[in-house]
């Protein structure tokens, strides 16, 4: 077993990335993820690895495209407005199938918004963000420990499927200090990076990292191949947690990240009043764990309450997964406000009273 240390979320991400053999970090300062860049600036060069502070988020993601395309494990991190800037690059990375990890410590928007925690980038992360038909695995940790664990998982999944992966946290998780244990993971069997453009070095054919296909027939074939890959990811890489779902509940809450932790407190409050509430916590936001709703649809009497720090984004995927079999309602706070357990329980009671549908 590894040692247990007290760490900030952003630092745990950095340490986990280094343990996952991340060789290059390209970043640009933005609150609330700057501690991650500072951690990498301090530790990467000492380990003989690369830290570059780019001139913009746009440049940083394109440095990732270069390093990842050369076959080297690399990452970048930012917060919401910065991830909007990176979205062009993420589309190219998805199109050219370059493995890398992007961290988004989400803050309130739209625009410059605030620097407080939010979950309002769910659509951007899971439905594309950049242009074109693509998806990337999106991981939503809800503790510092999980941030560390998922970081390593994200690097492996990126390499296995030649895809960008996103770790989506929020300012709360990034700033929170919790004990973390860095355990030795069983590494995946990863395919060789024989596609990488790192110089011929005796290879007979040249490799090109590229997302341009001028012939529509070729571009359609490329898209069909990408979709087949996304299907494979859907089949193999879904993660979720079911909390108190092995019983007949009055209501089941769907929530992820920081919000899921608040919801667990609401569930405790509910129990004290004799109300049974379960929780479906998606850990991968894409691929979305539809299966978690298959498993629980008969374990809730009044349906699902989706709780988010947004105007209601994940709730659309919950509705698709539940597909009309039970009512799905929504409770959210926006702009950096965090939902509190009492208000969540209030919503649960309203559902039970038939006041919200």
């Amino acid at each position, binding site marked *: 077993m590894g040692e247990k240390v007290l760490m900030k979320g952003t630092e745990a991400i950095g340490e986990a990335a280094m343990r996952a053999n991340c060789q290059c970090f390209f970043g640009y300062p933005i609150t609330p993820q700057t501690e991650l860049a500072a951690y990498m600036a301090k530790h990467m060069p000492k380990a003989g690895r690369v830290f570059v502070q780019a001139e913009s988020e*746009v440049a940083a993601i394109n440095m990732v495209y270069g390093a990842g395309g050369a076959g080297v494990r690399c990452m970048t991190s930012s917060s919401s407005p910065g991830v909007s800037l990176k979205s062009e690059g993420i589309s190219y990375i998805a199109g050219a199938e370059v493995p890398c990890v992007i961290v988004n410590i989400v803050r309130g928007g739209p625009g410059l918004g605030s620097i407080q925690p939010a979950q309002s980038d769910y659509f951007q992360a899971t439905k594309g963000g950049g242009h074109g038909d693509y998806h990337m695995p999106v991981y939503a940790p809800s503790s510092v420990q999980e941030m560390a664990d998922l970081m390593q998982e994200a690097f492996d999944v990126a390499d296995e499927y030649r895809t960008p992966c996103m770790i989506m946290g929020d300012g709360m998780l990034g700033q929170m200090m919790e004990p973390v244990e860095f355990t030795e993971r069983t590494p995946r069997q990863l395919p060789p990076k024989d596609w990488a453009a790192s110089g011929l070095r005796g290879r007979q054919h040249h490799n*090109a990292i590229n*997302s*341009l296909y001028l012939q529509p027939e070729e571009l359609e074939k490329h898209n069909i191949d990408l979709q087949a890959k996304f299907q494979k990811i859907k089949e193999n890489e879904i993660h979720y947690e079911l909390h108190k779902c092995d019983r007949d509940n009055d209501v089941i809450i769907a929530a992820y990240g920081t919000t899921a932790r608040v919801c667990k407190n609401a569930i405790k409050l509910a129990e004290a009043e004799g109300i049974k509430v379960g929780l479906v916590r998606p850990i991968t936001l894409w691929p979305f764990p539809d299966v978690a709703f298959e498993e629980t649809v008969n374990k809730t009497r009044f349906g699902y309450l989706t709780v988010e720090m947004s105007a209601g984004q994940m709730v659309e995927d919950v509705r698709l997964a539940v597909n009309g079999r039970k009512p799905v309602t929504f409770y959210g706070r926006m702009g950096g406000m965090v939902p509190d357990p009492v208000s969540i329980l209030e919503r649960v009671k309203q559902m039970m009273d038939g006041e919200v549908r």
Partner: protein
Amino acid sequence: MALTFEKTKGLTEVSTHYCPGCTHGIIHRLVGEVLEELGVLDKAIGVAPVGCSVLAHEYFSCDMFGAAHGRAPAVATGIKRSVPDSVVFTYQGDGDLAAIGTAEIVHAATRGEKITTIFVNNAIYGMTGGQMAPTSLPGQVTDTTPYGRDTGVAGFPIHVSEMISTLDGPAYVERVSVDSVKNVLKAKKAIKKAFEYQIAGKGFTMVEVLSTCPTNWGLSAAEALNWLRDNMIPYYPLGVKKDIAGEMK
């Protein structure tokens, strides 16, 4: 019969899509020949831009990247930093480098990234059909300056090599032209020197190559070369703009 001339191994067998009279073909060949002569084709990695040379990844025989518009110097930074023994070059046009990619080229240069940029300046957006470029000359007629580039409205051209040479990061910056045999040979010398500096780890190097666009200039191949000579060279003086070897003397 004795072999007296051979196509460089730095280029593939793919036929280029460039218009008749366009000088991209010459510049491709110079880069390919230099990489071959320096014996670095095996560890060379090129970055193609968005613009007329967007398909350059099919023409160079070394490993290649296609970059997003303007981002080639950032992509090259990622490559060079992660594979330090590689020989990395970007191949960019004037719209790519001097408009949408201004931040990337300036910062790669000032960081002293050990890469070589081949900057092809033909004073126009060629691929999209002849719009004003950041390097279009005052008075130049283009699709988007149909009455000639009015500097009061459209601003002034950027002297990229002069601008980059004010930075401390670059080791070598030279402007050359491919309008004549003599100048083509000079251009090759400059490109070779830039790569030699990169291989020696001296810092950022850039060669700006004044080039033609007969199609969008509305001129024949021969007229285009004359136009370059008569209009571009006086505005964009040829020569070494920065050379740290020179500074050390």
